[in-house]
């Protein structure tokens, strides 16, 4: 792993190196065995699981059907593998198999450095065989990856990956890869009441400043060639028709209609709740402009929909021109 720049907002400049060294040591240590399942694989827990999941497969709960089936006896649903070795109420809830495992101190180091947020990103399970009643699987955990710091929609963070292998009666029965993102939650919008800086501010330069000054005054300004009079958007330094660098602007009526649009679901965009619609808006003045359509469900947006511009304060300094449905 190569050394990267120390993550922003972390007071300890050596943190990344220390974390990397710790992770490498834990990865080199390999598999660490945990406690065997507290209860052997049993019918009551399978029955509860199947009822809660709505799983009607009789080979998991009905002895007669199971005896006649491919397994010859009742077997546990394979996706229950992790359930058997969960710590339960007595253990550290929410961090299964981790007690005393090689991932504990890596996660703790991230917590201590301010990366207190956690979100799971991947869960991959492979089943060698189904478990029978009475078996007591034993988990073994190994740290297999650390990458970061990376900028994510939730904030800056590290991805931590570990593998758990379950053994029973001396053989491997299942394996799981699990990956979490540990992130700085401070960079995330926490409540709607606190106004955080909008993370996707526009690049304002000599060509575009007039547009943003207009937005701040509630005007939708369209650049106009000072020589031939052609309108153009987005703004630029030279008229594409007559090559003149002379420019001025007109104030648009603020009306338009959907020329085309997309509904954005993924990835998450800071400052926005998905899904949301982004339209190419045809203005009666002749140019098209891109903007989000708000105050209406994305499913209601359609080509030709009449729109009216609106101005929304995104943070203390930024107002964005957005579009809302217009009554005709």
């Amino acid at each position, binding site marked *: 792993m190569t050394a990267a720049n120390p993550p922003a907002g972390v007071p300890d400049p050596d943190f990344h190196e220390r974390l990397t060294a710790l992770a490498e040591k834990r990865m080199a240590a390999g598999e660490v065995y945990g406690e065997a399942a507290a209860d052997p694989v049993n019918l009551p*827990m399978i029955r*509860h*699981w199947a*009822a*809660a*999941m*709505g*799983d*009607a*497969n*009789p*080979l998991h709960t009905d002895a007669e*059907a199971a005896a006649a*089936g*491919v397994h010859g006896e009742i077997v546990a*649903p*394979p*996706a*229950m593998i*992790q*359930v058997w070795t*969960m*710590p*339960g*109420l007595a253990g550290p*809830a*929410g961090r*299964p198999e981790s007690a005393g495992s090689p991932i504990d101190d890596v996660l703790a180091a991230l917590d201590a450095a301010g990366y207190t947020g956690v*979100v*799971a*990103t*991947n*869960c*991959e*399970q*492979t*089943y060698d065989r*189904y478990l029978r009643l009475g078996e007591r699987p034993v988990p073994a955990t190994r740290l297999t990856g650390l990458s970061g710091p990376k900028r994510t929609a939730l904030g800056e963070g590290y991805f931590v990956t570990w593998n758990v292998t379950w053994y029973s009666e001396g053989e491997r029965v299942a394996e799981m890869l699990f990956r979490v993102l540990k992130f700085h*939650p401070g960079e*995330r919008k*926490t*409540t709607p009441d606190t106004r955080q800086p909008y993370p996707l501010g526009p690049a304002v330069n000599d060509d575009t400043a007039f547009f943003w000054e207009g937005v701040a005054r509630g005007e939708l300004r369209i650049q106009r060639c000072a020589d031939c009079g052609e309108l153009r958007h987005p703004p630029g330094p030279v008229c594409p028709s007559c090559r003149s660098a002379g420019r001025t602007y007109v104030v648009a009526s603020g009306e338009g209609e959907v020329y085309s649009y997309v509904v954005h*679901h*993924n990835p998450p965009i800071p400052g926005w*709740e*998905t*899904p949301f619609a982004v339209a190419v808006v045809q203005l009666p003045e002749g140019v098209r402009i891109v903007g989000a359509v708000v105050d209406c469900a994305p499913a209601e947006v359609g080509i030709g929909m009449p729109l009216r511009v609106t101005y929304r304060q995104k943070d203390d300094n930024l107002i964005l021109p957005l579009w809302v449905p217009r009554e005709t």
Partner: protein
Amino acid sequence: MRTLTEDEVQVGVALPELVIDLTPTTVVSTALATMDFTPVHHDPASARAQGSKDVFLNILTTMGLVERYVTDWAGPEALIRGINVKLGVPAYAGDRLTFTGTVVGRENGEFTVEVRGRVSLGDHASGTVRVALPDR
């Protein structure tokens, strides 16, 4: 309940949709049935305190529902060999989880089924399930 056989399944076939209304009871009962007592899966106040809008499904349940989705379609004798899930937006109580799937591959006696579980916020889980079917 009959199990599909290898020759009854073609690559490209779509699985029937499965819609699950995520009641608070669904979220809580599955969390407890998977032995996950983390408060965000059963205590709305605790979930809100950490920035979530309500209690939400735990990952062990997501894995279980993906398994159920595929075995509901394939039948009881189908053997699930593996489930790979990329986790997306939370599946909150009050939302609706809709599974869709397509058979995308067949290799060494195993079928690969691509599965998506969507909620109102977007994809909650997307990935693949490997499943072996009886040959006849």
